[in-house]
Structures are given as C-alpha cells and as structure tokens.
C-alpha cells in the first residue's frame, strides 16, 4: 500500500483500527483522562466489545482468563497513573504464567512527561520487571506498528504480557497521520526458536528409549503450545507415566490411565514417588519450580534429565539438565515422535511393566482419600460434586489457597485450557474476573469459579460487571471463615498460633449476590450439596453465588515436608489425623 492509499486517522482511531485489524474481539478496560480520546473512538464501535470492569486489576485478570481459555492474546485498555498501576498485579500474574496479553495504558502528554503531571506514572518503568516487552509510543504514526509488534511479541516464543504506553497528545483528535498496520512483523533482535536442534532430539530419543523407569513431567508449555495430542501420543508410545504441574493440568487427560496426578508440594503420592525413583525425567514446558522440586540439592538423585523448553533461561536454572532441548513443546514432541518412527526405536516394554507394577503399588496408598462426615461438608467433596454436576466439562477458574489445591487435585481436567489459575504468582482475587473472560469466550460452556471466603473478597466488585454484561458464571465459594492455607501452615509450623487468619464479620454472601442482582444460595448440609449445586447449574442465564460452609479444620494433603526430597510427604490418614 503506498502512502496515498493509507487512510488518514487520528492516533485514537489508529489504536481502535489496529485492534480491529488484529482481530481483537474483547477489550477489558476502564476509561480515564488520558484515554478519553481512545474511548471516544471506541464509542459505538461495532466489532470490538468493550467490557467495563470495576477495577483495572480485574480487567487484566479477565483478559488473562480469556487468553488462557482461548489461546488468543488478551487485550486491556486503561488510563494513566492509578489506572496503569492497578494493572500491575494482573500483569505480574500473566508474566509468571507466560500468558499472552497486551495492556494499552494512557500516559500524560509527551510535553509534560517527567514533570509529575496529574495522573502521571512511569508505566514502562513500573512494569519493566514483569513484562515480556514494552513500548512508549512517541508519534501517532508509530501506533499501529507498536501495537502489531506488541501482539506478535506477546503470543510468540514464550508468551507473556506486553505494555504499550500511549501519551495523550499522540492520540489527540487534532493530529491525523497515515494508518498502516504491518502484515509481517520482523524484529531483528527477536527470533524465538521453534524447532529443537536435531542433535539434541537424537540424544533425547536415545535417553528415552534406554530408560527403565521414565516419567514425563510436563507443565504449562504443553498448554500454551497446544501440544496435548503430541504429549499423549508419546506417553502412549512409551507406555510411560505422566505427571503434570499445577500449570499443566489437562495437558494429558486427568482420567488417562497413564496419568499419575499432579506433582509437587500438594502432588499425589504416586506422582512424587514416580519422580523421585525415575531414571529418566523427560520435562516438557515445565520449569522445576520450587513448589515442585522441594529441596533442589536432594532432587531426584538418580535421574537423567531431558529438559525441553522454548525459553532457554528455564533450562538449568534450578536443576541442571543433562540433555537440554530449546524449542516449542509441540514441535519438539513431533520431532521426537518422528525420529522414533523413522529409526523404529522404542523402549523396553518388560521394564515398563515392572515400572508400572511399582507405580500401582504407590497408587494403592490412595493419597487423595479423605473421610467424609455426616454433618459437615468437606471441601474435597465440593470439588468432586462440581465434577459430577458438570460432567467434568466445566472451565474451572480458581483463586489462591486451599480451595485452589482442592480444585487442582479433585477435578480431573480432561482437556487443556479447562483449568485456569494463578500458578506462579499466586494471586488472590484472580478467579472471578478470570471466569468473566472465560465465559465471554465460551458462553455455552459451564464456567465455575472455585474460590474461598478470603479470595473472593479481593475482587468481589466484579459481580457488578457480570450483571452489566450478563456473564452467568457460577461461583463456588468454599467458605471456611478463614484464610485456610495460611491457617493450615500456622497449624503445622507455628504451633497452631492462628495469627490473623480468621475472617471475622464475613458478609452474608447470599444477600451480597442478591444486592448485585444475582442469585445467592447457601448450603451447609452434605446431603443437600448435590441438589443445590445442580439447581445452581440449571440456572443457565444467572450468575449463582453458591456459598458452601465447609469443615474449617480440613487440611490439604498430601503435603511435602519442607527441605526434604520431592517424595518426602505428609499424608492424610483416614481418621483425619496425619500419619
């Protein structure tokens, strides 16, 4: 397109047109002084639906939920100063979990940047440690390219959030410039690798085929690279056990016979045992996080580690890899499968039978078993009931705490992107806004936010957003009148000194939901749990806030012993005491 064919637009119009041309469907945001011109350009706009949240943090979480459930880039628009700083927790959440987002923030006019102008914040500076990249755009004509680059960077390589800071004078209606959105993005300093190096693939295949006790340990990289089918194919070809990280749940079906459950701090007995006793750990899109490894110096001493990751910095960061493979999970798994096919090699099936024999013994421990009570609802039971009522098909978002672990452990996710939680940063207040983003993307699917009485209050104002846009998510509030995970640690490690972990004067959540115009329900009797939950999910067009009073003494087990090996764990005994 030569210059004459380029339409003359204002900066604000370019912002909206760029988003439209990039296929943005939902924009989560909140207006303010610095972005008034952009909001004016959005007024009565047809193809982009803007969702007005009630707090900018929620805009980012909602865009994040949208991104996690669809795989598309989530989009956010906020004003300068407090609007921008309110997004920080959301951006950090997305950064830690490698979620593609673009956050457009207003900025004071270029002429007054640095003068402490009203609602001025150095957003590029504030967000620098928690973004994949950022842009401060200085000229109107640079807007489309900056936005196109932002979306490209956000979704390629290891995905992540990108900030585009837009000073008010460059989006002013007074200045028009030719609009041109580049179709192809080429950044000479940014070339993420996709394919694994053939020599490393060869080494990986050799190690895998010689393994007697292999385990596939996979994380969020399987989800973001859409590599679930390849992972399942490799697992089945090898007949190897698979364990998923908190971020990787659904990477292989939670009901697959070779799936041994989540690993790590609250992983299953069999998953952590399998890891510790493995002779080969084939890690894909996982990063040996401290919530997985426990004490790194005692980590899986007998294992040869093959580590596949799109981000070279993740490899050998905490645990030294013997065979590093840099590349996208999907592509690398395809290469591994192709090479095994081509060379007609595989592992020893007799050894695998012996390995499974051992793993099945660990499974018999039934580490997720718990004791039900006649008069109190157990939190585990709530999640199991949710699984039943939704046929295991729901998108489940969660907040952070005990309920998050219960959701991760007791709801076997059959597909990738079904499980949406803040894994790395551990952000309370994530669940409800994230559920809004998911429900907008999948209006016909069940969307449940599993939360607790602490977390839900951190972004409860979004009940208003749900009402305004008709977003009928189901809120499963596992209410134990306390900050359960904090309390659990205090019980276990601080002699039961429950310092500030009791939630006094909780609101009446049923009335609160009703005050926002939604439906509230409460249940305390285990015999009524299922029927109430069925009733809630039957109300397809209503947001139902289901307040479930559970046994406040419940702990999350199994749990790793601090400072030990990966399989050094405390298990729940069937009579409710530790063993």
């Amino acid at each position, binding site marked *: 397109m030569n210059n004459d064919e380029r339409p003359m637009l204002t900066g604000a119009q370019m912002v909206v047109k760029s988003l439209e041309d990039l296929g943005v469907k939902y924009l989560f945001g909140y207006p303010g002084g610095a972005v008034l011109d952009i909001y004016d350009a959005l007024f009565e706009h047809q193809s982009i639906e803007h969702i007005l949240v009630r707090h900018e943090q929620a805009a980012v979480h909602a865009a994040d939920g949208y991104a996690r459930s669809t795989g598309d880039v989530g989009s956010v628009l906020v004003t300068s100063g407090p609007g921008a700083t309110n997004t920080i927790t959301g951006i950090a959440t997305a950064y830690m979990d490698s979620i593609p987002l673009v956050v457009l923030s207003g900025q004071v006019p270029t002429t007054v940047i640095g003068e402490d102008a009203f609602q001025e914040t150095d957003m*590029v*500076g504030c967000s*620098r*440690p928690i973004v*994949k*990249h*950022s842009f*401060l755009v200085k000229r109107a004509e640079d807007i489309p390219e900056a936005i196109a680059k932002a979306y490209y*960077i956000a979704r390629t390589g290891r995905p992540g959030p990108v900030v585009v800071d837009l000073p008010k004078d460059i989006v002013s209606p007074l200045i028009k410039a030719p609009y041109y959105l580049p179709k192809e993005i080429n*950044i*000479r*300093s*940014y070339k993420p690798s996709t394919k694994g190096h053939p020599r490393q693939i060869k080494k990986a295949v050799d190690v895998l085929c010689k393994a007697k006790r292999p385990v596939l340990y996979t994380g969020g990289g399987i989800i973001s690279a859409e590599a679930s089918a390849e992972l399942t194919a490799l697992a089945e070809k090898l007949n190897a056990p698979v364990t998923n990280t908190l971020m990787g749940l659904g990477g292989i079906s939670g009901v697959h016979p070779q799936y041994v459950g989540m690993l790590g701090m609250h992983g299953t007995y069999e998953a952590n045992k399998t890891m510790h006793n493995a002779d080969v750990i084939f890690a894909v899109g996982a990063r040996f996080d401290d919530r997985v490894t426990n004490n790194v110096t005692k980590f899986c001493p007998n294992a040869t580690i093959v580590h596949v990751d799109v*981000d*070279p*910095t993740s490899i*050998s*960061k905490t645990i*030294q890899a013997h065979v590093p493979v840099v590349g996208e999970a999907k592509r690398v798994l395809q290469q591994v499968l192709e090479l095994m096919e081509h060379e007609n090699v595989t592992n020893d099936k007799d050894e695998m039978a012996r390995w499974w024999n051992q793993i099945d013994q660990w499974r018999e421990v039934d580490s997720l078993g718990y004791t039900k009570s006649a008069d109190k609802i157990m939190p585990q039971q709530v999640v199991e009931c949710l699984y039943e009522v939704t046929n295991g098909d729901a998108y489940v978002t969660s907040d952070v705490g005990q309920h998050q672990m219960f959701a991760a452990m007791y709801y076997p996710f059959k597909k990738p992107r079904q499980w949406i939680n803040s894994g790395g940063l551990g952000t309370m207040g994530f669940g409800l806004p994230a559920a809004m983003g998911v429900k907008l993307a999948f209006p016909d699917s069940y969307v449940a936010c599993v939360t607790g009485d602490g977390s839900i209050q951190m972004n409860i104002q979004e009940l208003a957003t749900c009402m305004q846009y008709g977003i009928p998510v189901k809120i499963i509030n596992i209410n134990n009148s306390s900050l359960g995970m904090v309390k659990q640690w205090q019980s276990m490690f601080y002699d039961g000194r429950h310092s500030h972990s009791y939630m006094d004067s909780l609101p009446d959540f049923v009335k609160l939901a009703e005050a926002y115009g939604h439906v509230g329900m409460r249940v305390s009797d285990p015999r009524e749990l299922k029927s109430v939950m069925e009733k809630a999910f039957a109300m397809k067009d209503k947001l139902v806030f289901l307040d479930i009073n559970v046994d406040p003494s419940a702990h999350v087990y199994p749990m790793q012993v601090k400072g030990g090996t990966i399989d050094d764990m405390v298990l729940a005994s069937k009579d409710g005491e530790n063993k």
Partner: protein
Amino acid sequence: MRRILSILLENEPGALSRIVGLFSQRGYNIESLTVAKTDDESLSRITISTRGDQRVLEQITKQVNKLVDVLKVRELTERPNVEREVVLVKMLAENNEQREEIKRCSDIFRGQIIDVTAKVYTVQLLGTSEKVEAFIDVMRENGSIIETVRSGVVGIGRGDKALKP
C-alpha cells in the same frame, strides 16, 4: 571469577534500563558498565564486568539474550580478547617532592599528566583493569589522592570474529 560480557542491542530509549534492571532484579552484580552507540548508529554496545561461576554466567547470558532489544551477547573472557580502561587520578601536588613522585609513578606506568593547576595534577592512565588498580594503589601509597574516576572496562575479541547483527 571476573567475567566481561559484551552486549549488542538496539540503540533505543529504555534499552539500557532493561539491562540494568535485569541485573538488579535477578541479583547479579555489576562491577562496571559502559555503553555507547556503535559505528552503526542504530545499535549500542554495552560492556559489563561482573562476577560469578560458570552456571551464574550462563543464566545471566541467557537472561540478557532473552530481552527483546538484545541482538547478541558474548562472554568476552571465554576467548582471547583485549580490554582497556581509563582512569583519571587527581593528586595533591603542592610541593616539589609531591610533583616529582607523581611524575615518576606516572612515567613508570606510562600515564600522562593531562591537567596541571597550582596545587593539583591530574593523571590519565590507560590499561587493563588490573593495571589501573595497581596504578591507583601506587598513587595512594606515594601521594595524596583527591579523587579518581574510572571509565569501566571495554573489551573486544581478538581476530576476525565480531559481534555483529
């Protein structure tokens, strides 16, 4: 162990702050840092002197490489290289004895006296960081230092290999 990293990156506002921020954020230390544009004005070259074992260095190199603005990173100390640093030392030169001592030491180190006032000599010395440090030690022992300023080390690999886009 001391290591010198050479970084080629886009000559854009904010690029330097990403490098410096990364070092502080991840707890890596910076002993010296120099930055200037290269013969190609769209690019800057940064030389960072840091300390760490091989594993830390590998992480630093990978983390720096991951920054979107960065084109190339190389650990100079891995291969034959030459390094230089400039120091300016301002010395008290009130009497003949002091002046002669400064002149004598500067000559031994092949430094130059580049500014003279009634009571002060300023000496310039060019060399490796080790030589610069030795010079400062000698000047401290044999005279009275008013202030010193060091450029930080710059380095370049030997031979025909170059850090190019």
